[in-house]
């Protein structure tokens, strides 16, 4: 089945060192410059021993890209042995670009040319020869291939040149010249020998998108934190969250912030709670196993009312599970994973842009509500690249939530004063006349331990109330599709929203009355909006990447109805086709 006609999926496959990943980076950048949207999510085969296959996977489209798609329209082989194993992941009418003169040591049945099926279009190009011609080595085969792609899809070579310049931070003129030669040789070879496939044409419409960042979800979250005024990060390496720390380690010290790699996750969250207590914007990021270790100290932040941000980049579970596979199975842990009644605010971005915006906003929320805010990302979001308009960084409207600070006065300061909003004016160490002691024990308004039942009831209610209030200040959940009665209401969250959206808009479902409900605030969920949505839907279907139906369970609690669970653990992003089929099943 071909992909949507307005998008093109390209895979570049090689061995480590063949430059497939950097070719995809240049391709992404060039496409973005030409005005296209991209989503790049490299596939991670269960690989072997350091060496081995590396596959860049990118989707290019005129409209914003919702999912990376599964089957490639075009496979570029820089190493036939590896590329052959990707043949099951291309469309029946795919384009295959390969080296027509592979080196001698490729055995007969390891040449991809022999595998090209009827319906596919093969482009045999002497990549190695042309590279040698350009740079006197085979090192530029990837650039030659890009040139060929430009010709095949009618793309602007200038955009590629600019992309190369950016990629190599405008290195020496000689390097640029070499690359230009390689690019041209590939391009011209196609123009002279090949025939351009008509189906997809990526001729640039405009050339204005110069303010584009092509960044991953992890980078976007880290940048969002920086732009929120992050001043403290503590973390412990864990896939797929490590990139966040690596990014911040480069940037934060230059902004007078602190990054510390701790001895474990307990220490990481401890440091963050300490910095939050000191009144600083502080964050950590981890994945399931590390998040488990953080729960005790996270609970301290709930009880002692300290605002911090914790990102959980989810991966397959339970336990060490599938570290390099995506899943959304920590929702229960984030919402319910504390001892006692321990409410925390839980957010989940749907795409890379929101990794930026939600992280940025999370700091305001944490500070205003004086409570931990958990952001649920996942392997897919963490590691995929998207084009973000630079405007996002400036246009971000901040200051919706503001912290309420205490002022020293004659009366003794009550750090945990009971208020209607549940929020008590806060004071940080260093502030004169507001000294007080806080504790993870239940306490009186003044912070002193207090084991009385009535006091506990009041404090417990205060902590829940302040958090419940965010539902009214937070933007309404996104709803798409049919605005009135719907035959099916699709609810989804986090990185699965893209696939759910694409499914709802799928041509096979046109005509059906389908609506979508996509919250970003997962706890406390905006129950009023959810109930209204539920009321207008004949069936509710929850799409998520876990097997227990964690969001589904929460929806059932609130709507008092059974929902249909499209809850699966395929170890990869949800498949749009399968969602469409299942919705069709429900509809008939």
């Amino acid at each position, binding site marked *: 089945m071909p992909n949507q006609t307005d998008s093109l999926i390209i895979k570049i496959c090689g061995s480590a060192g063949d430059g497939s990943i950097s070719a995809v980076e240049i391709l992404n950048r060039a496409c973005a410059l030409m005005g296209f949207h991209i989503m790049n999510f490299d596939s991670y085969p269960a690989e072997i021993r350091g060496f081995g296959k590396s596959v860049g996977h990118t989707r290019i489209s005129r409209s914003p890209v919702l999912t990376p798609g599964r089957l490639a329209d075009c496979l570029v082989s820089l190493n036939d042995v590896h590329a052959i194993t990707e043949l099951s992941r291309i469309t029946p009418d795919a384009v295959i670009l390969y080296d027509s003169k592979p080196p001698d040591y490729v055995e007969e049945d390891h040449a991809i040319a022999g595998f090209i099926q009827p319906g596919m279009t093969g482009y045999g190009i002497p990549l190695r020869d042309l590279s040698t011609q350009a740079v006197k080595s085979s090192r530029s085969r990837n650039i030659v291939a890009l040139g060929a792609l430009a010709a095949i899809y009618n793309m602007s070579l200038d955009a590629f040149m600019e992309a190369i310049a950016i990629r190599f931070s405008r290195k020496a003129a000689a390097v640029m010249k070499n690359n230009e030669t390689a690019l041209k040789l590939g391009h011209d070879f196609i123009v002279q020998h090949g025939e351009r496939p008509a189906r997809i044409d990526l001729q640039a419409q405009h050339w204005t998108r110069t303010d584009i960042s092509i960044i991953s979800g992890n980078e976007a979250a880290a940048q969002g934190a920086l732009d929120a005024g992050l001043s*403290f990060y503590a973390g412990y390496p864990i896939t797929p969250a490590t990139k966040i720390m690596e990014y911040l380690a480069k940037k934060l010290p230059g902004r007078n912030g602190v990054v510390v790699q701790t001895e474990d996750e307990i220490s990481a969250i*401890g*440091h963050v709670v*300490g910095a939050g207590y000191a009144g*600083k914007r502080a964050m950590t990021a981890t994945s399931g196993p590390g998040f488990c270790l953080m729960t005790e100290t996270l609970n301290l932040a709930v009880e002692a009312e300290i605002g911090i941000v914790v990102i959980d980049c989810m991966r397959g579970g339970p336990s060490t599970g599938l570290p390099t596979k995506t899943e959304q199975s920590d929702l229960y842990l984030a919402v319910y994973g504390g001892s006692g009644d321990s409410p925390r605010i839980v957010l989940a971005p749907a795409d890379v842009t929101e990794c930026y915006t939600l992280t940025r906003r999370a700091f305001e929320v944490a500070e205003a509500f004086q409570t931990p805010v958990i952001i649920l990302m996942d392997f897919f979001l963490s590691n995929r690249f998207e084009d973000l308009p630079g405007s996002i960084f400036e246009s971000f409207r901040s200051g919706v939530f503001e912290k309420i600070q205490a002022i020293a006065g004659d009366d003794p300061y009550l750090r945990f004063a009971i208020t209607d909003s549940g929020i008590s004016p806060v004071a940080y160490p260093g502030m004169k006349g507001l000294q007080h002691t806080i504790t993870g024990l239940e306490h*009186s308004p003044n912070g002193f331990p207090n084991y009385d039942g009535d006091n506990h009831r009041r404090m417990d209610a205060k902590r829940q109330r302040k958090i419940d209030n965010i539902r009214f200040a937070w933007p309404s959940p996104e709803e798409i599709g049919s605005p009135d009665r719907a035959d099916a209401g699709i609810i989804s969250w986090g990185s699965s929203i893209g696939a759910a959206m694409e499914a709802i808009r799928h041509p096979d479902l046109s005509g059906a009355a389908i609506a979508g409900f996509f919250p970003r605030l997962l706890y406390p969920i905006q129950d009023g909006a959810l109930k209204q949505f539920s009321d207008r839907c004949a069936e509710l279907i929850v799409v998520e990447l876990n097997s227990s139906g964690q969001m589904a369970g929460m929806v059932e609690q609130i709507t008092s109805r059974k929902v249909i669970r499209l809850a699966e653990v395929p170890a990869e992003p949800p498949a749009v086709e399968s969602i469409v089929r299942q919705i069709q099943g429900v509809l008939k």
Partner: protein
Amino acid sequence: MTDQEKSFSDTPLVNTRIASDLAEVNMSGLLDYRSHALPTWCPGCGYYGITHGLTLALKDLKIPNENLVIVSGIGCAGRLPFFVKGYGFHTVHGRALPIASGVKMASPDLTVLVVGGDGDGFGIGGGHIPHVIRRNVDLTYILFDNSIYGLTKGQASPTTPRGQVTSTSPFGTLEDPINPYLMVLAYGASFLATGFAGHPDNLANIFREAVNHRGFSMIIVTTPCITFDHVNVTYDRFRGLFEPIPADHDTGDLQAAMNLVASGRRFDGILYQASRPTWTERLDSIRGEIKRMS
């Protein structure tokens, strides 16, 4: 009361004995650093002596109350912040060091003290000590070593001698105790002192030096739990044991310090002190380069 952690209410009953203690404290002007809350410790607990020593040191150091932060773990010892005037954070069991590090790294101008028990520090929290020492975060860590879990009513701790009968070792403990002094020196601590709760004036001197030390300073104070230990750390057994630091001891000599603590003798004073950049100094020293590169 069989299975209950000791607790205290919001409006502590003033008992006569403590009220007179307080009057004494008041006269000496120490109330600048003592809160209105009366300690919830058992009368006679060594912790009163440590608190007294700390109050004396704070008075001398004249740290503005608002810049003083005491971070504690859970245990009887962990209750100290409630009894001192300043900012206080009674955290979770074993995590005072990471949390205090976060406070100090984020706000280097604050004076951050850490207090906790031997179970809190060497048991559940033991994994954090080498790392705060590696970073040399400028904290002062006062460890209340009564060789017992006080708050949970008398279980063995990592410093309980082998063979001691406790509530969880009715036939005597099977584990060898750690040598906490040797351990901390092996970690590369830049300041280590030891002392006894029965000598608050000595403690005051040590605490003052420790707070003034640039970098991580640790003071391990031996202190009797008069309620749950009648055989090991008692006033009677220990008061005479603590010796002044030998006059010829060079506190800059790690080897000599290790020899002293390996001997099994107990000392009242600073065993080792070295000058080593603090975390904040390390970071500051490369900020220039960082700014250039980023």
